[in-house]
């Protein structure tokens, strides 16, 4: 099965992504051309909201990347998240095979669509920009699950 999922996140700051990945137990591996997935496209997933093929991403891009995210302590062959330049989109788009052991990626990152990665990335981008503007920054997790990035000066 090959269920390549498109994540609704356009990454323009790799350093911020690396920090978010680190906090979630992943590592950013830069300048690599492939990531682990099923390995061939079977066109067997019709979810128009999530399936990359139905969201305008050509199958030639599946399994290819510019950088990738790997779970720390991942076993040999465990699926990974590719960070891929998609024509017409800004930055890098995360793509991953959500079938089989791809479920581990979703379990680690908040479920389908990797919301914890999106949340952590937004927090790191915010913190970086606030520091750039001269604020001292603190990131805290609220009891309702939201992240608060507070800049003060």
């Amino acid at each position, binding site marked *: 099965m090959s269920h390549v999922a498109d994540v609704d996140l356009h990454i323009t700051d790799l350093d911020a992504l690396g920090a978010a990945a680190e906090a979630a137990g992943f590592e950013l591996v830069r300048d690599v051309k492939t990531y682990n997935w099923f390995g061939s496209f079977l066109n067997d997933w019709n979810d128009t909201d999530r399936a990359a093929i139905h969201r305008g991403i050509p199958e030639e891009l599946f399994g290819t990347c510019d950088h990738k995210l790997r779970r720390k302590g991942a076993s040999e062959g465990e699926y990974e998240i590719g960070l891929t330049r998609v024509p017409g989109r800004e930055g890098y788009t995360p793509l991953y095979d959500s079938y089989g052991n791809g479920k581990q990626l979703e379990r680690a990152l908040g479920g389908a669509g990797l919301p914890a990665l999106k*949340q952590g990335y937004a927090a790191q981008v915010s913190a970086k920009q606030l520091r750039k503007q001269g604020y001292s920054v603190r990131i805290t997790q609220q009891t309702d699950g939201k992240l608060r990035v507070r800049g003060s000066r």
Partner: protein
Amino acid sequence: MKQIDVIIDETGNPTIHTSGFTGGECAKETAALEKALGAKTKDTKTPEFFKATVGRITQ
């Protein structure tokens, strides 16, 4: 003290809250942040914003 809070929900959507700014100073200060986050975020205007606006109109 000037303070900017970015609250990010569990799906990754950010909302910006500010305090200690007056008038348009706040929008200017958060513009780069909104740009960095890649989208127009929700914002809420504090009483300071309106106080400063009224002040300018009545001068």
